[in-house]
């Protein structure tokens, strides 16, 4: 217990010690070759048995170096017990990432570090920055083995065939003529990430970013016999603002690549090492030719390219005080960066407000195009019909090397008297263009629909499509039968035999004379068979009729009923006083029943 207490007291005493044993040092890594694509690490170490408060040091202006990141701080403490005595050691490390600007001498002046109120001064560090890798090309020889103290000497990836390349579409242009710049990664090794691009100061140039998507726009190229996958990472429109030689300094980019492992085990299993490498582009020189003074129109405001102009003004008929929107669209090949809108001359009949850009579409690196629309608001201040002043736009065509002026008239404006006094706003924001609104609500003129399934989706409606095809066979049968009835008299007579017999029997019933009645019934029966057979009933004997019925398959019982009915009629005709003759109704009923039975049996 006593020993433990002594140890704690000793530690506290050590922590409370004064900062008189503090040491401050500064070093750069890597120790060896440093190129302008190497990330230099400036490490400031503060060591001591205890470290009081440390202010973040302010790095002085460095020669040929700029701060890329930092400081990153880390602390380390250690205690040692020797012969009952406790020694403590603390280290505070501040790490900056520095980026060389160009090949040549570099210097980090002494850095002032304030520790516990005491200022410590580090020694200046000087080294030479060598030319680093830029542009695609064969990689350097592989570095040593994996255990080559990678921490002490960071990897600059010189053996990785990945580079950053900048290209412009035209190296010789007129002042104001746009040219496109593309910065792309040329990779013969797997690229897994891109940590950003540091563009240089583009002196003497206006620049405007164009859309780019490294994955979507990637392509393959062969450079020096080697195949590269090209990932565009930046596209810009560059417009020279002065004549002469203009240099586009290198762009610097940090690329994460996967390099084949030098470890045989990892290499065998295709496990790569991920390394962050710095790459820069080669400088590019652009020659900007001056625009000719000869023939320069007064309306020229600096647009260089090839353009068309479109005009629109709406509405064409307004009341005094109403706003008319005038839209002017300039489109073509070129850039309108920094170019003022076309000139709209003032007119006494209208008040014209400052234009504003309402649409702007830019092209891509492959298609340098522009479409820009300005909107003017003009408000008529007096009634009548008048023409708005023409709109003029002048540009220099580099292909033809001459100035062009396009001018178009606006349509005639019809202005009627307004309802109230004319009050024209004084600021652009106070006047709104006649914007399109939704069409107004619909008034109800008929009853509202209760909804439900649309007619064309209802099953009953769909069934109507099937009905005609179900009726077609019936229709054809009916049509053919009707046709036969019209053309085939025998068939028609046969089909109508029963109806004719019924009519004849009905007429027979009307006959008061018994003989005539029975004769008519007998004729009706015989004529039925004659109609059925399409032959004359005259001269047909009862035996012949019986034969015909038998041939038609009429059974014997029915034939006997038929024959019996005929014989009863004959008997009544020739023996009028016989008892059978008195029952006319029975005979008539029997004759009708026989006809019905024969119809079924035929």
């Amino acid at each position: 217990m006593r020993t433990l207490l002594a140890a704690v007291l000793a530690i506290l005493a050590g922590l409370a010690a004064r900062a008189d044993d503090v040491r401050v040092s500064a070093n750069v890594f890597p120790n060896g070759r440093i190129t302008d694509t190497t990330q230099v690490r400036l490490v400031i170490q503060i060591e001591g048995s205890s470290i009081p408060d440390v202010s973040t040091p302010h790095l002085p202006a460095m020669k040929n170096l700029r701060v890329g990141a930092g400081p990153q701080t880390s602390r380390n403490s250690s205690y040692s017990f020797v012969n009952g005595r406790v020694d403590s050691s603390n280290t505070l490390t501040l790490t900056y990432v520095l980026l060389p600007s160009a090949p040549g001498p570099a210097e980090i002046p002494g850095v002032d570090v304030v520790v516990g109120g005491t200022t410590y001064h580090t020694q200046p560090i000087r080294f030479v920055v060598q030319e680093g890798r830029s542009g695609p090309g064969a990689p350097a020889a592989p570095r040593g083995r994996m255990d080559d103290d990678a921490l002490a000497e960071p990897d600059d990836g010189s053996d990785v065939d990945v580079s950053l390349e900048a290209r412009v579409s035209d190296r010789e242009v007129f002042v104001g003529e746009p040219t496109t710049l593309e910065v792309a990664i040329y990779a013969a090794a797997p690229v897994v990430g891109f940590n950003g691009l540091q563009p240089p100061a583009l002196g003497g140039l206006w620049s405007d970013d164009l859309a780019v998507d490294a994955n979507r726009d990637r392509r393959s190229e062969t450079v020096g016999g080697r195949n590269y996958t090209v990932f565009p990472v930046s596209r810009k429109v560059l417009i020279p603002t002065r004549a002469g030689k203009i240099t586009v300094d290198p762009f610097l980019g940090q690329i994460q690549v996967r390099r084949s492992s030098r470890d045989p085990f990892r290499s065998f299993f295709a496990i790569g090492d991920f390394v962050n490498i710095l790459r820069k582009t080669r400088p590019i020189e652009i020659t900007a030719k001056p625009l000719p003074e000869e023939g320069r129109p007064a309306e020229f405001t600096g647009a260089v390219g090839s353009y068309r102009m479109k005009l629109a003004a709406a509405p064409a008929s307004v009341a005094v005080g109403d706003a008319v929107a005038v839209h002017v669209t300039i489109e073509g090949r070129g850039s309108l960066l920094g170019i003022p809108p076309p000139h709209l001359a003032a007119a006494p009949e209208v008040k014209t407000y400052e234009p504003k850009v309402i649409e702007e579409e830019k092209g891509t690196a492959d298609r340098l195009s522009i479409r820009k629309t300005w909107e003017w608001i003009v408000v008529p201040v007096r009634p009548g019909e008048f023409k708005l002043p023409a709109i003029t736009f002048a540009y220099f065509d580099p292909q033809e090397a001459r100035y062009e002026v396009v001018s178009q008239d606006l349509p005639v404006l019809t202005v009627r008297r307004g309802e109230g006094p004319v009050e024209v706003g004084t600021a652009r924001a106070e006047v709104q263009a006649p914007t399109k609104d939704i069409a107004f609500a619909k008034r109800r003129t008929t009853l509202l629909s209760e909804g439900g399934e649309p007619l064309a989706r209802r099953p009953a409606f769909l069934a109507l499509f099937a009905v005609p095809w179900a009726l077609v066979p019936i229709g054809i049968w009916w049509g053919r039968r009707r046709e036969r009835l019209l053309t085939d008299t025998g068939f028609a007579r046969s089909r109508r035999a029963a109806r004719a017999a019924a009519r004849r029997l009905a007429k027979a019933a009307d006959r008061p004379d018994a003989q005539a009645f029975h004769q008519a019934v007998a004729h009706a029966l015989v004529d039925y068979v004659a109609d059925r057979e399409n032959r004359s009933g005259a001269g047909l004997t009862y035996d012949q009729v019986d034969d015909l019925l038998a041939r038609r398959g009429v059974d014997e019982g029915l034939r006997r009923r038929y024959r019996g009915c005929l014989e009863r009629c004959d008997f009544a005709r020739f023996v009028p006083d016989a008892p059978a003759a008195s029952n006319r109704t029975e005979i008539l009923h029997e004759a009708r029943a026989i006809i019905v039975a024969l119809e079924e049996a035929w």
Partner: protein
Amino acid sequence: MRTLAIAALLLAAPAAQAAEPEDSFDRAYAAYSQGNWDLAAEGFRTLARQGVADARLEYNLAGAEYKRGRLGEAVLHYERARRLDPADDDTRENLALVRGKLRDVLPGDSGDEGPLAGIRTLQDRLGVTVQALVALVAVWIGAILVVAGGSRAGGFTPARSWLLAGAGAIALLAGLSWRATDARLYGTPRAVVLSASVEALAGPGLENAAVFTLHEGATVEVRAERDGWMQVALPTGASGWVGARAAERI
């Protein structure tokens, strides 16, 4: 006398109820005309909830919602109005105008484009019912011609055969057009996003990763619904799951 009065009231009651939707519509229309968008929207919405499915009602409700700044609701009800009356130009133009103000620009949102745009416009103007009726009449005429030709020997005269071929062609054309229009308007279940912004997830559950983000007014295809989640698909083919409350079926 008292019994007679009660009977008269009972007889009059259904007539009074039948007139009520029209009265409500007219009141909501009056509110719209006076610029009282909230009252108008509420009036039209109440009618829609009562089951009145009328293109004018959906159109006016959409307009009121648009005026209230609720673009998702506006798109939803313009789409419903279009289903009920595809021939209406105002609906089509208003829908295009509202879609122009949406944050998500999806393929097909800009309206009919391409070589078949004219045909689709014609189909919309004719409407599904007219096309179906034309097809039905042509089918009946064809059937009558078949009966007339088949009823007698030599019944298929050249003139009658040409008429039959014409009727068949019209029936086929009108039928195909009708089915295509029907499929376009009613075939694919679609929904409109009503939330300001909603993430479509890889599966029906909050634990799934976000696939894409949709914003108010986006019209998407509905592929499935499960446990309060709706699987939606974009015209590009990408699909994801959103909470069923974030979107409403058209």
